[in-house]
C-alpha cells in the first residue's frame, strides 16, 4: 500500500481509500449507502443537513460522513444504533417543518426526502406545533419555487455559484427564519439555472414548464443528446404517451458532468409551437395548401431535379448526421455541388485548407487542465454554457482566462487579461498578439505576419507572456470570430498564436453538429468522410448568386443566415422545397413545398460534437400529425430520382451504418488546417462617424426550435438579445434614451426595435439581433420613432 492510501473498515468491510477522501465518498465507491441531503458529489462540502451522521469508533459523538476524512485504521458503522438514532433524529427535524403535501407536489415519487423518510422517518409525527410557511418570490419562467418545502440543504446556492459562476441565490435570515432565495425578487439569470431543479432534494425548486404535467413513475426515459451546441450534452428525454415532457442530464464525466444548459433542458417546449408543420404543403394558385405525402414527394422531387446544377441546399447545423449525409447524397445525385450548413459564416476563402472537421482543439473535459485559455470573439457562457462551465472550473483551478472581444461580456469567471477591440480590428489584434508572441519566444516572424503589422503589440505583451509561459494553452474562436468578414485571417493568425504558444486551437461552432456536417459531406468542399471534393457554392454565395431552386433542411435562412436579407431575396425568386418542423410566416411566402419534418426529440439520429465524438440518440416523443423523420423524407425524395441508387434502405440503423462506414476514425483534437487568409487590414484608430452593425446570435435564437420555446423566450437573456445595443455615449450623442423605440436602417433593411445601452459595447458599434437578418459590418443609422402621445 502506498503512503497516500489508508485502510479502514466501514460496516465490517475492509476498504482502501486515498488519504483525504471523505467517509461518504469511500462508502459510495464501495456501494454502502449513507443517507444525505446537502452532500452532492460535484459540489463543495458544507455538512449542514446532518443526515449522514455515522458512528466512528472512538469519536465522542456521531460524525458527518461527508465532512470526515478517512484515517488509517478507522472503524465506521453506518447502521449502528448510535448512527441510526442520529439519522432518525435528523429526519424528524427535517420533517417537522416540511409540509405534508406530497400528493400535490411535483417532486412526489422522485423526492429524496420522501424516499429517505420511508427508511428513517416515524409513522406518525410527534410534532404538534404549527408548521413554518414561506412566501414565494418569482424566480423567472424556468424554475418554479415552493420554498415552504425547502430543507435548507443549500445545494442550489452552491450550484449557481460553482457551476453558474454567480452568487444568484443565498440564505437570508437566521435560525428557523432562514430563507433560501434570490435576496430580492429577481429571476435567476444563469444559463445553467435549471440545474438547481435537479439538485434540489425536495419539491422546493421545480421545473416551471414541467409543473403538474406528469408523475415521475409514468414517464418513459430515452437517451438523447443536446441539440443546440457543439458540446453534445448527454440527456434523458422523458415522455408520457408520446409527448416529450422533460429533459434531464445524463451524467457523462467527459462531456457535461451532471449539468446541462437551460437551452438543452427547456428547448423541447418549442415542440408544441402553434406553427408546427403537421401536413405537407404545396403551393397551388399562389397559395400554400395541404396535400398528401403521395402528392408532395413527386412535386418536391420535380422542383429539385428541374434545377439541375442550379440547386442550393442549406442544411441546419443542428441537423443529424443522417439527414446531412442523405442531403448531400441527394443534392450531388441531382447534379448540384452547392450544399452547406455553415449558415452564419461569411468568409470561406480558406476552405481548401480546412481541417477534417472544426474541433474544440481537444477533449471537452481536458479544458479543465488547460492553464491558459484565450477566447477570441466569444461570449462563451452563452454560446456553449457547458464549455463556459469547464473554462470556469479551469479558472478556479488557476488557469489564466483571457479574452479578445469586441464587447465586454460578463462571463461569470475571473478574467486574467482582456482586450476590447473594434470588430474591424479583430484581425489586427490577433496579429499584434502574434507579434508579441514572436518577441516573447525569441523566434522569427513568418513572412505573412508582416502584412498585418501596424504596431501596438506592446498592449498584447502580458497576454503573450502568459500564453508563452503556459504549459497547455488553448485558443477558442467563438461565434463572433466565426462570422467575422475576415474569418480566414483570424484563424490563420489564431493558428499561428496556437503554434507559437504550443497550444491547441478550437472553434465554438454554431449548432449541434457542424463537425458532423464536415464528416457527412454537407459542406460544399467536402464529401462523405470529410474527403475534399470539387467545391460548390457555400452558404453565402448560394444566395449572393441566386439559384433556381433551394432545398432547406430544418433551417429558416431569413433569420439563420449571416445575411438573412440576401437569403430571403434569393428564396423569394426561386422554387423552394423546405423540410421543416415549423412554418413561419416568411416560409409561407417563399416556400413552394413544405415537407413536415420531425424535430429534435422526435426522431433518432446522431451528432458529432466538437471533440469528434459520435453520439447516437433515440427518439423521445412521437411525431406530430403527418410529420416524418428527415431520413425518411430524403429517402423518399431519393427514390423519385431516375438514378435512385443508394436510397434503397428501409430503417434508421441502415442509414446510420452507411454514415458510420463513410466516417472513418476521428481524433478529438483534429490537426489544424493550413490556413491562408490575406486580408488588407484597415488602419487602426481612424474616425468612424457611422455605426457598424454587429449581429450576435442570442442565446435563445440559434435555431427554429429554441426560437419557439416560450419559457426560454421569456427569460431576461432572450429579452436582451431582442434589443439594439449602443454605448451610452453613442446613445447620448444621438439623443436616445435607454428603452427608447428606434427605427433601424441597416443597408436595405429597416425594422423597429427597443434600444438599450451597455458600457461594454464599443463606441461606433451597434449590436443587432441576429433575427433581423443584418450582415455584420453593415453601416447602420438609427431614427427615433415619435411616440403616439406626441403625435
Amino acid at each position, binding site marked *: 500500500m502506498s503512503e497516500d492510501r489508508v485502510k479502514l473498515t466501514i460496516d465490517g468491510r475492509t476498504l482502501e481509500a486515498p488519504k483525504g477522501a471523505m467517509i461518504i465518498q469511500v462508502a459510495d465507491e464501495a456501494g454502502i449507502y449513507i443517507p444525505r441531503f446537502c452532500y452532492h458529489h460535484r459540489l463543495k462540502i458544507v455538512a449542514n443537513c446532518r443526515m449522514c451522521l455515522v458512528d466512528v469508533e472512538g469519536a465522542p459523538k456521531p460524525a458527518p460522513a461527508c465532512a470526515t476524512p478517512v484515517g488509517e485504521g478507522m472503524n465506521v458503522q453506518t447502521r449502528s444504533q448510535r448512527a441510526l438514532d442520529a439519522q432518525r433524529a*435528523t429526519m424528524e427535524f*427535517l420533517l*417537522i417543518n416540511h409540509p405534508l403535501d406530497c400528493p400535490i407536489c411535483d417532486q412526489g415519487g422522485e423526492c429524496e426526502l420522501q424516499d429517505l423518510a420511508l427508511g428513517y422517518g416515524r409513522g406518525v409525527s410527534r410534532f404538534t*406545533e404549527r408548521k*413554518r410557511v414561506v412566501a414565494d418570490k418569482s424566480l423567472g419562467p424556468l424554475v418554479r419555487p415552493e420554498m415552504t418545502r425547502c430543507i435548507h440543504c443549500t445545494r442550489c446556492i452552491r450550484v449557481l455559484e460553482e457551476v453558474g459562476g454567480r452568487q444568484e441565490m443565498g440564505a437570508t435570515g*437566521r*435560525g*428557523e427564519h*432562514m430563507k433560501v432565495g434570490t435576496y430580492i425578487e429577481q429571476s435567476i439569470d444563469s444559463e445553467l439555472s435549471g440545474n438547481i431543479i435537479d439538485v434540489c432534494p425536495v419539491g422546493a425548486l421545480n421545473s416551471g414548464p414541467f409543473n403538474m404535467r406528469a408523475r415521475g413513475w409514468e414517464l418513459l426515459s430515452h437517451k438523447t443528446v443536446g441539440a443546440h451546441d457543439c458540446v453534445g450534452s448527454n440527456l434523458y428525454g422523458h415522455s408520457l404517451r408520446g409527448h416529450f415532457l422533460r429533459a434531464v442530464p445524463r451524467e457523462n464525466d467527459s462531456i457535461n458532468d451532471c449539468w446541462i444548459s437551460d437551452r438543452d433542458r427547456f428547448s423541447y417546449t418549442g415542440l408544441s409551437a402553434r406553427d408546427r408543420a403537421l401536413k405537407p404543403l404545396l403551393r397551388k394558385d399562389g397559395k400554400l395548401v395541404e396535400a398528401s405525402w403521395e402528392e408532395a414527394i413527386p412535386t418536391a422531387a420535380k422542383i429539385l431535379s428541374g434545377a439541375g446544377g442550379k440547386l442550393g441546399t442549406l442544411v441546419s447545423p443542428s441537423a443529424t448526421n443522417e439527414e446531412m449525409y442523405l442531403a448531400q447524397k441527394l443534392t450531388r445525385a441531382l447534379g448540384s455541388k452547392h450544399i452547406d450548413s455553415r449558415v452564419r459564416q461569411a468568409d470561406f476563402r480558406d476552405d481548401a485548407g480546412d481541417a477534417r472537421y472544426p474541433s474544440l482543439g481537444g477533449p471537452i473535459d481536458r479544458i479543465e487542465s488547460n492553464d491558459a485559455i484565450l477566447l477570441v470573439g466569444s461570449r462563451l457562457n452563452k454560446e456553449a454554457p457547458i464549455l463556459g462551465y469547464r473554462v470556469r472550473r479551469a479558472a478556479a483551478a488557476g488557469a489564466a482566462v483571457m479574452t479578445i472581444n469586441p464587447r465586454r461580456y460578463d462571463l461569470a469567471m475571473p478574467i486574467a487579461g482582456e482586450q476590447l477591440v473594434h470588430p474591424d480590428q479583430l484581425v489586427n489584434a490577433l496579429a499584434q498578439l502574434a507579434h508579441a508572441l514572436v518577441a516573447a519566444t525569441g523566434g522569427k516572424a513568418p513572412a505573412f505576419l508582416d502584412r498585418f503589422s501596424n504596431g501596438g503589440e506592446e498592449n498584447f505583451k502580458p497576454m503573450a507572456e502568459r500564453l508563452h509561459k503556459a504549459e497547455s494553452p488553448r485558443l477558442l474562436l467563438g461565434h463572433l470570430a466565426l462570422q467575422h468578414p475576415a474569418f480566414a485571417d483570424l484563424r490563420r493568425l489564431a493558428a499561428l498564436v496556437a503554434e507559437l504558444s504550443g497550444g491547441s486551437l478550437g472553434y465554438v461552432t454554431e449548432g449541434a453538429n457542424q463537425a458532423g456536417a464536415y464528416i457527412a459531406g454537407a459542406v460544399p468542399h467536402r464529401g462523405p468522410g470529410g474527403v475534399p471534393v470539387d467545391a460548390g457554392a457555400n452558404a453565402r454565395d448560394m444566395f449572393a448568386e441566386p439559384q433556381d431552386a433551394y432545398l432547406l433542411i430544418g433551417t429558416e435562412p431569413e433569420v439563420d443566415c449571416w445575411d438573412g436579407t440576401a437569403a430571403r431575396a434569393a428564396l423569394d425568386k426561386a422554387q423552394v422545397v423546405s423540410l421543416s418542423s415549423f412554418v413561419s410566416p416568411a416560409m409561407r411566402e417563399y416556400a413552394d413545398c413544405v415537407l413536415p419534418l420531425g424535430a429534435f426529440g422526435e426522431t433518432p439520429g446522431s451528432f458529432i460534437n466538437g471533440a469528434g465524438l459520435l453520439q447516437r440518440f433515440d427518439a423521445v416523443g412521437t411525431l406530430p400529425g403527418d410529420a416524418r423523420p428527415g431520413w425518411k423524407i430524403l429517402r423518399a425524395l431519393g427514390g423519385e430520382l431516375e438514378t435512385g441508387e443508394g436510397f434503397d434502405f428501409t430503417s434508421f440503423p441502415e442509414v446510420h451504418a452507411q454514415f458510420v462506414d463513410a466516417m472513418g476514425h476521428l481524433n478529438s483534437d483534429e490537426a489544424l488546417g493550413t490556413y491562408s487568409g490575406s486580408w488588407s487590414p484597415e488602419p487602426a484608430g481612424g474616425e468612424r462617424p457611422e455605426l457598424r452593425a454587429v449581429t450576435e446570435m442570442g442565446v435563445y435564437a440559434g435555431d427554429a426550435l429554441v426560437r419557439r420555446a416560450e419559457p426560454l423566450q421569456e427569460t431576461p437573456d432572450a429579452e436582451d438579445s431582442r434589443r439594439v445595443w449602443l454605448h451610452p455615449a453613442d446613445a447620448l450623442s444621438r439623443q436616445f434614451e435607454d428603452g427608447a423605440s428606434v427605427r433601424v436602417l441597416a443597408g436595405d433593411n429597416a425594422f423597429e426595435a427597443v434600444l438599450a445601452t451597455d458600457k461594454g459595447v464599443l463606441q461606433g458599434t451597434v449590436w443587432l439581433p441576429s433575427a433581423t437578418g443584418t450582415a455584420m459590418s453593415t453601416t447602420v443609422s438609427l431614427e427615433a420613432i415619435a411616440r403616439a402621445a406626441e403625435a
Partner: protein
Amino acid sequence: MLGSGAVIVMDEDTCMVRVLERIARFYYAESCGQCTPCREGTGWLYRAIGRIERGEGRQEDLDRLVDVAHHIEGHTICALGDAAAMPVWSFIKHFRDEFEYHIREGRCLVGPGAARRTRAA
C-alpha cells in the same frame, strides 16, 4: 447543572417553566439556521415549553422535550445546539414536579403566577 455553564441566581419564588421558556427563546432566536437539528429543534423546544407555560401542556410533552433535546445534542456543527439542549433536559430532570404541576393545574407552582390559572377551567 442548568445548561451551558453560565450561572444565574434565582430565588425559590421563580417559576422554572417560565425561566426555561426564556432560555429556550434565547437559543431559538440565536440559532444561525445552518444545520438542521438546531435550526428546527430550537423552535420546537421553545414552542412546546411555551405551551406548557401557557397552561396548554400535556404530560407526554415532558419526555418528548427530553428526547428532542437529546436529539439536538451532539448532532450539530457548533456548540450552540448543545447549549440549547442541555438546560431543557436538566430543568426537567431537576424540577420535574414544577413542570408536571404546570401541566396539571395550568398555573405556576411558585411565584406570582401561582395565584392565577392561565387556562380556562
